[in-house]
C-alpha cells in the first residue's frame, strides 16, 4: 500500500505572542514545527505500512527551510520525501496550495491513499485536504478517527461528526484527513534520526511538476488577505473579591442580571 502524507511546517502558534504596544505578533524565536494534525497523519501512514507493506512518502509545499519538516518525518520512519519549492508558489491560498500539491502528487503517480491533517494550526482552514482530493479526482473523507480495515480497493473508517460519528466506506485511492483521536504519534528513532541527518531532500519546482504558474502562488490565489489586525481586547474584567462565599454570590447575581439564570 503506497501512501502519501501531506505535511505542513507551521509556526508553533502557542508560542506566538502579541506585542500590546504595536499590536503585532511577536514571531521572534517562535519555533517551526510539523503541524500537529499532520503528526497523526504520518503515524497512521506508518501503521498502515507496517500492516500492509508498501511505502510512505511525505510531501510539503513551502520555502526551502520546510525541508526540516520533511527530515523530521524521515526520522519518524517515512521512506521518501518531496519538497515543492519555487518562488512562484509563494503567497498561495488554499486553492493554489491544493493545485500545487495535486500536481506534485500526480508526478508521484502511484498511490493508494493520501492522508492529510484535519487542519493546519496557523490558518485553521481545513481546506487543502478536500480541495486537493477534488483536483486529483479522488474521493475525500474528512475527520477520520479510526481506520477499521483496508481490503482491496476499499477502506472502511470512522468519521467524526458534530454529533457522533459515521462509519464510512470509500473506494481507493482516496484522500482522508485525520483528527487527534486516531492514534498516539511515536517519537523519532535513532536510526530514523541518522537517516534524516544524511538525507538530501528532493525539491521540485513549478516546471518539474508541470504546474501552470498562473495557478500557483499569489497569482493563482482567488483570495487575498487585505488586512491583519489583533482582536479587540476583551471587555471589562473583574476578579471578584471578598470571601469565597461573597465572590460566588456576586457572580451568581451577575449571571442572573444577564439572564443566564432563569
Amino acid at each position, binding site marked *: 500500500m503506497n501512501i502519501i502524507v501531506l505535511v505542513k511546517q507551521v509556526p508553533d502558534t502557542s508560542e506566538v505572542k502579541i506585542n500590546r504596544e504595536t499590536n503585532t505578533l511577536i514571531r521572534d524565536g517562535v519555533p517551526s514545527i510539523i503541524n500537529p494534525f499532520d503528526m497523526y497523519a504520518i503515524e497512521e501512514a506508518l501503521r498502515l505500512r507496517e500492516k500492509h507493506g508498501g511505502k510512505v512518502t511525505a510531501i510539503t509545499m513551502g520555502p526551502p527551510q520546510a525541508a526540516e519538516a520533511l527530515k523530521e518525518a524521515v526520522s519518524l520512519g517515512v521512506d521518501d520525501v518531496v519538497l515543492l519549492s519555487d518562488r512562484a508558489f509563494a503567497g498561495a491560498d488554499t486553492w493554489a496550495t491544493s493545485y500545487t500539491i495535486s500536481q506534485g502528487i500526480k508526478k508521484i503517480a502511484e498511490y493508494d491513499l493520501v492522508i492529510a491533517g484535519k487542519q493546519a494550526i496557523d490558518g485553521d482552514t481545513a481546506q487543502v485536504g478536500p480541495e486537493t482530493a477534488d483536483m486529483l479526482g479522488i474521493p475525500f473523507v474528512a475527520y477520520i478517527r479510526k481506520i477499521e480495515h483496508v481490503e482491496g480497493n476499499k477502506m472502511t473508517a470512522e468519521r467524526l461528526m458534530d454529533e*457522533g460519528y459515521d462509519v464510512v466506506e470509500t473506494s481507493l485511492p482516496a484522500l482522508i484527513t485525520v483528527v487527534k483521536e486516531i492514534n498516539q504519534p511515536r517519537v523519532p528513532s535513532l536510526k530514523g534520526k541518522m537517516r534524516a541527518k544524511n538525507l538530501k531532500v528532493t525539491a521540485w519546482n513549478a516546471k518539474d511538476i508541470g504546474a501552470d504558474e498562473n495557478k500557483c502562488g499569489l497569482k493563482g490565489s482567488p483570495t487575498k488577505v487585505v488586512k491583519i489586525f489583533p482582536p479587540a481586547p476583551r471587555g471589562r474584567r473583574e476578579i471578584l473579591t471578598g470571601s469565597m462565599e461573597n465572590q460566588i454570590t456576586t457572580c451568581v447575581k451577575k449571571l442572573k442580571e444577564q439572564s443566564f439564570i432563569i
Partner: protein
Amino acid sequence: MSVRVISDKCTACETCVTACPFGAIEMRDGKAFITEVCTMCGSCVEVCEFKAIERMEEAATPAADLSAYKGVWVFAEQHKGDVASVALELLGEGRKLADKRKTKLSAVFIGHNIKSKAKDLIAHGADLVYLADDPALKDFNDDSYAAILTTLARKHKPEIILAGATAIGRSFFPKVASSLYTGLTADCTVLDIDAETGHLHQTRPAFGGNILATIMTPNHRPQMATVRHKVMKPAPREDSRIGDIIEIPYTQSGDLRTRVIRTIEELGETVNICEADIIVAGGRGLGSAKNFQLIEELAKVLGGAVAATRGAVDEGWIPYPHQVGQTGKTVCPKLYIACGISGAIQHVAGMQSSDVIVAINKDPDAPIFNVATYGIVGDVHEVVPIMIKKIREMRG
C-alpha cells in the same frame, strides 16, 4: 499585488520585521528584505514610519465578468430532516447582505423527506429555495452534495455562497470552491459587503485566534465562505413571508465512491457544544472522573452543555467530542464557565469569543483569568457546589 522595500528610505529600524505576522521580512545587507513567505497583507506598509515599504496593485488578472453573478445563497444544512440552527443564522446574515446589495437571498436545501421544511427557510428570510429531496440524499455525501451545489452555481451564478463551519460544511464546501476555481474563506466571524461592487469582506481568526484577518476574493465569483456557529443572528420567523420553492431533480450518476454504512450518535442527550448557549467546562483541576460530575451537575442546573480541556480528555474523564480548543472544537456560547482550567493558549483559542467567561481556579495567576469576565479564586470542589446551591436558591 506586490510589496517592495524602497531601499533608500529604509533605516533598518526593523519595525517591519517584528510587525510581520508571517515572519516574511529579514534584514539583508542592512536593509529590510521581503522573502517569499510574504502574503502581501500590508502590515509592514502600515507600521513603516519612513514610508519605505509600498504595496503596488498590479493589473488584476483579467477578471471573469463579475457582473454576471447575482444574488446571495446559503447552504441550509439539515440533520435527519431538522434544519440546523446555523442555517437560520446564515439566513439572518444572508438577508442583511442581500438587502444591502439589493438582491435576492436563496437557500440550497439537500436531503430526504425535507420538503415540508422548505417553507421554514422562507419564513426565516429566503426568497427562493432550491430543494433537492431524494432517498439517495438521506446521508451526507461529499460527492453528491458538492455535485448538486456546483451544478446549481454554474447555472445560476450566485455572487456569494455561505455555509456553516460545521463538520458537513467544512467537508464538502472546499470541493465546490475547488471545482468552481474560486476563493473560500473558512470560519468567518464577520462579513460585510460593499454595496457598490459586491465585494465581500470576510473576517476570520488565524494563528490560534491571536490575530484576525480580513480576506477578499476580488476577481473570482462566487465568493464563498463558511461561517462560525453562533456569531450571526437568525432573522425572526415571519410566516407571512413569501418565496418560491424550486425542486431540483436528483439523479445519481454511477456508483457512489463513498457511502455511510451507519451513523452513531454519541452525544446522546447532551447538546452539541457548538450549538450551546451555556457551556460549563472542566479541566485537570477537577482531579478525577468522579469530580467531573460536579461540572455535569452545574451544566444541568444552568441548562448548558459540558465541555473540557484536552488535559481532561487525555485523562479519560470525558470523550473527545467535548474537547474545546485548537485540536478540539471552537465554541462561542453566551456563557462559558471554566472550572479548574489553566487557560493554555490552545484551550483559549477555542473559547475566547464567548460573550461572558467565568473562571474558577485556585491559582490567582492562572492565565485563564486574563480572558475571564468574572474570576473566582478558589477550589472548584468548594466553589461549584456552593454555586449550584445558590442558583437553586435563587430559583426558589
